């Protein structure tokens, strides 16, 4: 055994060295997760602007479509952002799936283990697995939709989508739950995995729960706000392609284009 000893400095380093790939992939998994979690926080704040006013939400939408830079909206800019996020999402999913149970037997073993152990972090990880698995489909669908039809964002369009226009009423509530659970648990697990920040697990765990509750509440309220609008859109008393009245006045001739053409509120 002592013949196989690896000591780089003692002239025994001649054998092929191990690939650095696992190291980089581990790092990339964490970084991609971090990016997605932070993106989702930002995303949540942007969509939650609806709670302030429809106008603010519209403004944010137009901001991402480049309206304030070019004087005109280019929804494909949103597609670009969605594309980047989707790419990170695919990378993250591909890296994370390596750690998933590879067959039903492994899943069973893991579930039995978590049940026996009654261990918080182990159970949390199972939540990660379940929500991650769900998001393969849910998040993919959402990203695809946003990538192909980036113009479907706005107070009216979003309200319509969330009130089941394309994917069913259940879609956004379930996606919200998955995203927030996966994201907040993920961030907690990142912190304990790397010991950055080097804080006690008790504190980090509390922080994680607080953030989870905050974003779930914010998400729920936001969702309800959109759904309300969605009901109005369906009833025809809310303009799908909503445009703030001030903007309407200024640009009555050259208003932003839309698929459905313009409908005046209250018409």
């Amino acid at each position, binding site marked *: *055994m002592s013949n196989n000893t*690896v000591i780089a400095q003692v002239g025994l380093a001649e054998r092929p060295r191990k690939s650095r790939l696992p190291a980089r*992939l581990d790092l990339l998994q964490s970084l991609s997760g971090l990016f997605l979690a932070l993106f989702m926080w930002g995303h949540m704040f942007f969509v939650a602007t609806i709670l302030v006013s429809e106008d603010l939400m519209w403004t944010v939408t137009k901001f991402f479509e480049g309206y304030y830079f070019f004087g005109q909206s280019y929804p494909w800019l949103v597609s670009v952002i969605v594309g980047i996020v989707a790419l990170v999402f695919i990378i993250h999913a591909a890296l994370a799936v390596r750690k998933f149970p590879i067959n039903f037997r492994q899943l069973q*073993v*893991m579930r039995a*283990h978590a049940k026996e152990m009654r261990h918080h*972090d182990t159970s949390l990880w199972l939540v990660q697995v379940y929500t991650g698995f769900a998001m393969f489909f849910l998040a993919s669908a959402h990203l695809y939709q946003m990538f192909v039809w980036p113009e479907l964002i706005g107070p009216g369009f979003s309200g319509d989508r969330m009130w089941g226009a394309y994917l069913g009423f259940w879609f956004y509530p379930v996606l919200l739950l998955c995203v927030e659970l996966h994201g907040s648990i993920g961030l907690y697990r990142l912190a*304990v995995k790397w010991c950055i920040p080097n804080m006690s697990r008790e504190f980090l765990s509390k922080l994680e729960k607080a953030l989870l509750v905050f974003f779930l509440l914010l998400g729920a309220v936001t969702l309800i706000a959109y759904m309300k609008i969605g009901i109005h859109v369906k009833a025809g008393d809310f303009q799908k392609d909503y445009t703030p009245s001030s903007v309407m006045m200024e640009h009555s001739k050259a208003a932003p284009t839309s698929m459905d053409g313009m409908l005046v509120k209250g018409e």
Partner: protein
Amino acid sequence: MSEAQKTVQSGGAQQTRNRTLTFHILRYNPQVPGDKPRLQQYQIEEAEGMTLFLALTEIREHQDPTLQFDFVCRAGICGSCSMLINGRPGLACRSLTKNMGTDITVAPLPVFELIGDLSVNTGKWMRGMSERLETWVHTQEKEINLSKKEEVMDPDLAEKIYELDRCVECGSCVAACGTAQMRRDFVGAVGLNKIARLKLDPRDNRTDADFYELIGDDNGVFGCMSLLGCHDVCPKELPLQTQIAFLRRKLATIECTECNK
């Protein structure tokens, strides 16, 4: 003397109302052809200060001489007696029955090769891990001049090394590890802790690149999913979370100057 009275009386009082404990023990002897795993029940009367060591010994000596389990030091030092106690790994010799309900389930540690009943072959696993990770100090000198004074070492560093050296290889961390449950080749916290300990030790001449050879893959530090079952069940309360994170940070960004590709 009032203290004396109290103690003496409490000792006497407890004898009159001892609980009856029901043990549910996972029995299976792979040496016996056709034997099937089953939960067998035993009832014994609880005694003051009864540990699982005393209880299981009593069962073996008075009720079932075939019951297999491993105890050595029975003082929490040797790490022989880790088993699943009500589902969680722990040292049976240190587990007092009075801290448990009247129904106690005891099962062998998972992951390790089962010898029979509660006895598992942790020794074989640990030896394999030691050989694989080369868990000894690698020095450049072959000969030590034993007449000479020893090399000096900073007292704080010596203490830090001892802190990690306290591992008793009981296998609790491996049994509590979700990764180890799913991937049998995972080195476990016990192995990672050993590398962290050797990495601290200036007497070990290996570099980070050398340690990467041992644990730089998904059966090593990058396989760890940070479920931290290890950290939470370790009977010696070793700082496994921080040690594994420390190795991960060191090795995740390590350069590869000598990689052949």
